[in-house]
């Protein structure tokens, strides 16, 4: 076991811990939303360095990616925005997540949506939610300061946190509190007085006609004491103070570890080390992501299959693994399925976002995941035509009718470990119905909820 300082060092395959199918599968599920058989085989051949490079370059998906992806996505996004129907905006994002050549950026966009959790239930404006999402994507892997500055001045965020009437006479604490508790420092690293004074700093920041406004006449110009510093601070000064605090880099480091490694995998030493790296590079997200994705920590055997698949991971992972991309299911229905499993995009439950991990799993969601798997395999999420099914997929990739080989292929593809799950019945024949039921049970199994 390498020491703490080496745990973030670059992982190198060894005889004991080789670059194998399981690790390729792991990389695709964590950095993206799951690979197809061909993508997994390609990366297995090319090695870990080239595979991570592909993710960082935004080229890891190749199967099903339309040549004109960017234009297609923009057209769909625009139509959703014009329709003012949030369900269509969800479908747009699901489209991006499934078909983008760059799933890592979508993963990070989703992470920031959770970090800066804003809900359309209150904002009630599809265009603002769309613009906020574009902002998350644009700054997804840039400098955190740029992201933070854009987001706290983002109209959807300002509506969400009641900045509409944030005036010097009576500052509204909501924006100031969430800025410190959730976006930067984390709870416990500031006092109630800091919140009060921070609220004064952001007085005057407001939104009108879907745009940020800084009304100087409503700004409190008095001296404010925030986190041990005193001055006639403005909102931008406050952001500067918050960005310079080590707790902020720790919170980002924690957020990244939570996203790519799952809850409580990274120890506080690891987070400290990652946070120090972030501070050395002006809070550059991309560098920290790269460190994690290449690290020993990321590829150690004991950290594989230890993260609970969120509804988006589970649904999109199933769709991509089964290659339902030529004749894809309806993205509207997929988004609705994801809603039902508890992850309503653009409507996180509250300012804390989705807490994830074990909280994804309860009686309702387990039955729900089973129901989703059954509906997907029965073609109920397709308008028409019906897709090729798992039976044909296995036949295409294995070129065999042998039941054992088919079962092995499918469990490798869906569970990543190449072992038949102990708790599903074995496949006795390759009759179409039986294969479909086998896949359904596999997706509904406890093993499928980890990735």
């Amino acid at each position, binding site marked *: 076991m390498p020491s703490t300082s080496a745990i973030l060092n670059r992982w190198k395959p060894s005889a004991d811990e080789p670059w194998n199918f399981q690790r390729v599968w792991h990389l695709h599920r964590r950095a993206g939303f799951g690979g197809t058989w061909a993508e997994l085989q390609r990366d297995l051949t090319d090695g870990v360095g080239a595979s991570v490079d592909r993710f960082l370059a935004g080229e890891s998906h190749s199967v099903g990616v339309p040549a004109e992806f960017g234009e297609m996505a923009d057209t769909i996004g625009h139509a959703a925005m014009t329709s003012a129907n949030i369900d269509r905006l969800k479908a747009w994002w699901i489209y991006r997540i499934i078909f983008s050549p760059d799933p890592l950026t979508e993963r990070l966009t989703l992470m920031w949506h959770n970090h800066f959790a804003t809900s359309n239930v209150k904002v009630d404006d599809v265009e603002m939610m769309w613009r906020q999402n574009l902002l998350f994507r644009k700054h997804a892997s840039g400098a955190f300061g740029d992201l933070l500055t854009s987001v706290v001045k983002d109209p959807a965020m300002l509506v969400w946190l009641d900045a509409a009437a944030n005036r010097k006479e009576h500052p*509204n604490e909501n924006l100031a509190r969430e800025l410190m508790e959730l976006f930067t420092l984390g709870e416990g690293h500031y006092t109630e007085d800091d919140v*009060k004074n921070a609220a004064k700093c952001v007085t005057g920041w407001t939104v009108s006609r879907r745009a940020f406004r800084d009304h100087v006449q409503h700004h409190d110009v008095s001296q404010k004491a925030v986190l041990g510093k005193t001055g006639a601070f403005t909102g931008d000064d406050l952001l500067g103070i918050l960005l310079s605090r080590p707790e902020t880099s720790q919170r980002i480091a924690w957020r990244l570890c939570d996203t790519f490694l799952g809850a409580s995998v990274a120890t506080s030493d690891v987070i400290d080390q990652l946070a120090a790296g972030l501070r050395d590079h002006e809070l550059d997200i991309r560098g920290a992501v790269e460190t994690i994705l290449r690290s020993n920590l990321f590829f150690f055997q004991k950290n594989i299959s230890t993260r609970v698949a969120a509804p988006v991971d589970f649904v999109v992972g199933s769709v991509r693994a089964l290659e339902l991309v030529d004749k894809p299911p309806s993205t509207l229905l997929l988004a609705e399925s994801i809603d039902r499993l508890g992850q309503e995009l653009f409507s996180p439950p*509250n300012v804390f976002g989705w807490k994830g991990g074990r909280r994804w799993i309860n*009686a309702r969601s387990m039955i729900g995941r089973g129901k989703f798997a059954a509906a997907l395999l029965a073609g109920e999420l397709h308008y028409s035509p019906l897709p090729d099914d798992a039976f044909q997929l296995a036949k295409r990739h294995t070129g065999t009718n042998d039941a054992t080989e088919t079962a092995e292929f499918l469990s490798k593809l869906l569970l990543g470990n190449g072992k038949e799950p102990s708790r599903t019945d074995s496949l006795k024949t390759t009759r179409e119905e039986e294969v479909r039921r086998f896949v359904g049970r596999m997706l509904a199994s*406890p093993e499928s909820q980890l990735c």
Partner: protein
Amino acid sequence: MFNRRQFLKSSSLVALTPTVPAFLQQTASATEAEKHERILVVVQLSGGNDGLNTVVPFADEAYQKHRRVLRLPTDRLHKVAEGIGLHPAMENAAELFEDERLSIVQGVGYPNPNRSHDVSMAIWQTARFDREEHNGFGWIGRSLDTLPAPKRNAPSSVLIGNQATPVALRGRKSRSSAFDTIGDMLTDINLRPGPLPNGSASESDGDLSSFINRTTVDAYATADLLTDIVNQKKRESVSYPSSKLASQLRLVSQLIQADMGTRVYYAMQSGYDTHSVQLPSHSRLLRTLSQGLKAFLDDIAAAGLEDRVLVLCFSEFGRQVQENASNGTDHGTAGPVFVAGKSVKGGLLGQHPELETLTNNAPEHTTDFRSVYASVLQEWLRIENAQVSGDFEPLQLFS
């Protein structure tokens, strides 16, 4: 119809789960005793309810002074005591109060209040102040751990709603389930996994895959039970208002009437984080709450079960005394807790918080929430050793 025997036969895996032995040992007399068991229904008011505009100290000068836009008209309040009235939208709650079916504990909180939704909610839900324990077990889950598992393999507690299971319900041994509508849990497809691998039945939930295994087994067991319950149709005597909360309480009533065996039900009403334009939204929330509560208690009474059911409503904190510039209020400290049902003593309990001496614009609590819990656990659920409430003397909530 699906009976217990078929249920047992059909799910061989259930026989391997840690929760089954109690179920197998069930005797006829135990089932009879359970018919008299008391049930707790918790309604969580999420977001921090403005207690000051719920149980209103209209005669207090400080109220008049700090609430200019948000001050509620005195003549429209439902007077419940000298100088104190319920919000105008709480007509149904006032009726319950009049009937002595509602007790209101004033100024409930805890020392050194935390104003983060997350932390304060975790404190209320776990009754623990150490952050390390906020992801552990909750006050209800720990208490249910000390009781035998309910009959028919029913979960000890159920969250009715589409939220994540609250930590309040998490226990070491007791099972908690969650569903929003019965339909969520009815399934005609059989995708249940095979038997648990050897040895895993004794593993604790500490291990992630054991946790998922156990939840999956529990999920399909609950689904079978509910299929059974749905087949026993019950007549409804009361009409419920149309709101999410009312339909959740209605489902709770159906499950209690179907004799499911679960001891604690939990529902959440969200939206209380009223930082801006508070008057209309707060009014709507309180109306929904009191209407839902009244319909539920009337329904339970009509079913002849009113001696067995108690409702507890709490919020993670109250709000600041001085309103903000957005015609709303920011995060504060103590607030009122409602305890409703035929068995309560009725009336106002505890002292209304003192509004003259404020810390950061919010008052000191006058009653510790753990003494409310102590009363609910010891005197209502009759759990003595729950280790939840420490040394807190139970409030005298019941007559």
